[in-house]
């Protein structure tokens, strides 16, 4: 069942490749249909999800087949509280991108095939319970996104795509070295995450454990991205097509953050505890640096890209703080981990939607320069409304998903890392300032030079693609229990593993 969810988009892509005479409209129709069916299947999985502690057991919809037994690697997939929310967010975001692309006209077939391929890769990564399987999807996501940016981007797409590929590929190889280190340390040798989380093979080996954690952390940090590994992100985001940016920010960045919760913490709990302070510091620096640099941007899309660095910083801070709190206060560290996972979902929904909205903006004025706009709220009220809600959600306004996430992270982190957490509070202040300023520049005041005539409001496709993630963020903000009930047991397991 889970394999169907993962590979359905790829099957659809194969069908599209095999039918060369299909008209463009039909191709996109098929793409939307495939994404919709996949989303429906994920919702069904969610409804039937039995719950459970996850991570070292209690994994739902598990499948474990032999794949490369000689290197101790198998096709092992399954979902728990850490991965199910991300799977659902991924399916929704890809559906939104499919709907958004209804008016795409350039090389439509290849575009649809690439996105369907990326959907399989992203879903596959979040359900992987085997390090090699995880790595395969991790690397393929880089390849897929490279072609999206290089083929459909604007500005200097080739350059940005190359930079993106090279940078994240370095990270992925560091990750691979770390994985091989874990494999060699385990007895018997295995790449199975559940097995490794049970045996934690590198406990007590300070040198090897430190090296392996360093390799894995660098690999994941590049993808997350945290300061100082974030430099590939702004150009890649700015030059990617809108759905590409939405997937890159909404889904691909989560792969790094997810890796920390899924791999680094459960498999190397003691080492994580030893180095938790490093992650706290990196998290806080990312929060503040990302916000400050975003504040200096005049380009809307670039600004949103930098707020991603800021938001991913909260996640790293929360996970690091969970490591520092370990042993002292299980409740607090559970809260921090839950908050981090919630933040992954919230950021995916809100930032994904913001990037699609940036695409809408670009189609109206042909530029991302905020100074060139102004007064759009009058002509395009729906556009203004959706953007405003997404931006407020992004800055952590109560009643929206971002608030739930950040509140939990701060509450969970405060006791164990009071000073860094206090510093990170300023991040919220800064993002509030910069997002409000962006809203003001684009939607209020005098009509800017970029928009001639009467700019159109959101079209049906644009509304149907940008609004659902925002609506879901509101639902999570008001009634988060359905989400937190899924995340909390798994988060408690992770926190308990680190606490031992």
């Amino acid at each position, binding site marked *: 069942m889970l394999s169907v969810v993962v590979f359905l988009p790829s099957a659809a892509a194969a069908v599209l490749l095999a039918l060369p005479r299909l008209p463009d409209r039909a191709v996109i129709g098929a793409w939307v249909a495939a994404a919709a069916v996949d989303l429906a299947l994920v919702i069904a999985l969610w409804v039937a999800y039995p719950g459970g502690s996850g991570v070292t057991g209690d994994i739902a919809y598990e499948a474990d087949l*032999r*794949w*490369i*037994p*000689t*290197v101790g690697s198998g096709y092992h997939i399954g979902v728990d509280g850490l991965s199910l929310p991300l799977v659902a967010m991924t399916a929704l975001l890809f559906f939104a991108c499919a709907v958004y692309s209804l008016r795409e006209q350039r090389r439509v077939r*290849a575009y649809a095939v690439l996105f369907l391929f990326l959907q399989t890769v992203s879903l596959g990564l979040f359900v992987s319970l085997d390090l*090699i399987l995880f*790595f*395969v999807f991790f*690397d*393929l996501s880089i*390849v897929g996104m490279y*072609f999206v940016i*290089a*083929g459909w981007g604007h500005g200097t797409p*080739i350059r940005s795509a*190359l930079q993106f*590929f*090279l940078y994240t*590929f*370095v990270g992925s*190889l*560091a990750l*691979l*070295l770390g994985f*091989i*280190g874990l*494999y*060699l340390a385990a007895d018997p040798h295995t790449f199975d995450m559940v097995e490794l989380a049970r045996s934690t093979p590198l406990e007590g080996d300070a040198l090897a454990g430190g090296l392996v954690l360093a390799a894995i952390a660098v690999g994941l940090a590049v993808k997350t991205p945290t300061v100082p590994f974030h430099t590939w992100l702004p150009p890649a985001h700015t030059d990617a097509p809108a759905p590409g940016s939405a997937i890159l920010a909404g889904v691909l960045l989560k792969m790094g953050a997810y890796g920390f919760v899924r791999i680094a913490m459960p498999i190397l709990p003691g080492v994580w505890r030893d180095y938790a302070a490093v992650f706290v510091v990196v998290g806080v620096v990312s929060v503040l640096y990302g916000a400050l640099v975003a504040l200096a941007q005049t380009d809307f899309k670039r600004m949103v890209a930098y707020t991603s660095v800021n938001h991913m910083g909260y996640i790293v801070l929360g996970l690091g703080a969970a490591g520092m709190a370990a042993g002292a206060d299980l409740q607090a560290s559970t809260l921090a981990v839950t908050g981090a996972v919630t933040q992954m979902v919230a950021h995916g929904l809100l930032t994904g939607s913001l990037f699609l909205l940036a695409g809408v903006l670009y189609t109206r004025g042909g530029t991302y320069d905020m100074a060139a706009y102004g007064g759009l709220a009058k002509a395009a009220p729906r556009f203004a409304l959706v953007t405003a809600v997404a931006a407020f959600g992004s800055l952590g306004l109560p009643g929206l998903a971002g608030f739930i996430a950040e509140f939990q992270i701060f509450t969970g982190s405060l006791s164990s890392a009071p000073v860094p957490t206090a510093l990170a509070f300023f991040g919220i202040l800064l993002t509030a300032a910069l997002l409000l300023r962006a809203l003001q520049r684009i939607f209020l005041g005098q009509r800017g030079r970029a928009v001639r005539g009467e700019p159109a409001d959101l079209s049906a496709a644009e509304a149907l693609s940008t609004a659902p993630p925002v609506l879901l963020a509101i639902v999570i903000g008001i009634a988060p229990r359905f989400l937190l009930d899924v995340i909390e047991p798994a988060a408690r397991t992770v926190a308990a593993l680190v606490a031992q």
Partner: protein
Amino acid sequence: MNPGLLLPESALAAGAVIALLAGSWTPRRLQWIVRCVALLSLAAAAVFAAAAMARPATVTPEGVYALDAALHLARVAVPAGAAITILLAAGHVAGHRRESEFYVLVLLAALGTVVMAGASGLLVLAAGYLLASIPVYALVGFGKDALGTEAALKYYLMGALSGVLLLTGVTTVFGVGAAGDYATLARTLPDASAGVVAVGTTALVAGLLFKSGAVPVHFWVPDATQGAPAPVAAFITTVPKIGALAAIFRFADQALGETALNWPLPAALLAAASMTLGNLAAFFQDDVRRLLAYSTISQVGYLLVAVAAVHGSDTALSSLLFYLAAYTATNLGAFAVVCALPRARTLADYTGLMRKRPWLALSLIVCLLGLVGTPPTAVFIGKLTVFTAALDAGLVWLVVLAAVNTVASLFYYLRWILPVFRTAADDAPADRGGGADVPVVRWSAGVAVVAAAATLALGIGSSPLLDPLQTGVLVR
């Protein structure tokens, strides 16, 4: 000894003889019959080899030829590579005055390569080396054009030099070890003078490194690859590696096992130099064949990483053999694309290929990303196992260097992939390669698609090959 043990080798030899005789009496327009004979003998060799795998590993009574995992792989991979070469060449040499000679030379070179892989005696190794080399000199110059002649001359001179080196090494080791077979050498060499053994080993390995195109005897690779006919270039950058690296590994494992020689360090240094120099030199190549030539130099580096892990890890051999198989499929796939577009010589000539020849373009992308080691292609599994073996052997620095090199290699492979995606309108109308009006060699295009599919299949379903390799050890 039982001649039935050498059925695959006999099939290749018989195929060469029959092809030579039949070719002399067949009219030029019927030479395709000779091609079929050659392909049949290659297929027969592979089938015999597959049948022989079930038998337990053994050494011939004289101790000079080992029938084990390394030979089994070579017996299948080498004929497969040779068959692909013949298929790729079919379009180029059909109706050629010396068509059947081409096939004979390929068969003989394949036979020599297999013998190298199986040799566990110095004289058999030398014989296999010469048989694997001399036909290839002729193949490189087959086109008889200026570039080809220069390439053949360069290849021949370097080959003659390294052949002499190899023979010197063989003589020296023979002299101090007082025996030709590796099993005896393993007993006698530890008592021999370490200095002399080192000199002999160095000379011997230098010859084998030449065949595999590794630094420091790599100078022929770019020129020969660029000047030789494209199918021959595919052959010389791929197939001899199987024999040469198996031979290096076997010599290190079986003959040098107990000596005081610190083998892993020089092997690791050679690996490091080969991958780094190959990658750096490939960076700004605009000629696709030169690019592939430097890429092959760098790939030998990764293969030598497994050789460096020979004493430190149980999986060194299986990783090396799997990587060889994976590399054979992938590199031949990339060359098949080059052969399919004979007029596309530079990277820019591939502009717009995706639009005009989507399947060919996809094959190229799969093969090039495969050479990088992107999952789930076969070379990824190869790299994974090689890195694992080397880390297991404690060669952390070498693995880190190999990873860094992998990233560097990505840069130049992407330089080739990018134009494939651009539409011709984006650039000057450089429509020499991918244009719809340009004839595509259909056979080569088919081979490219099959090779790309094989690369993926071998990566996703690696177990059927990796499992038997894992249990197979070299016989002593």
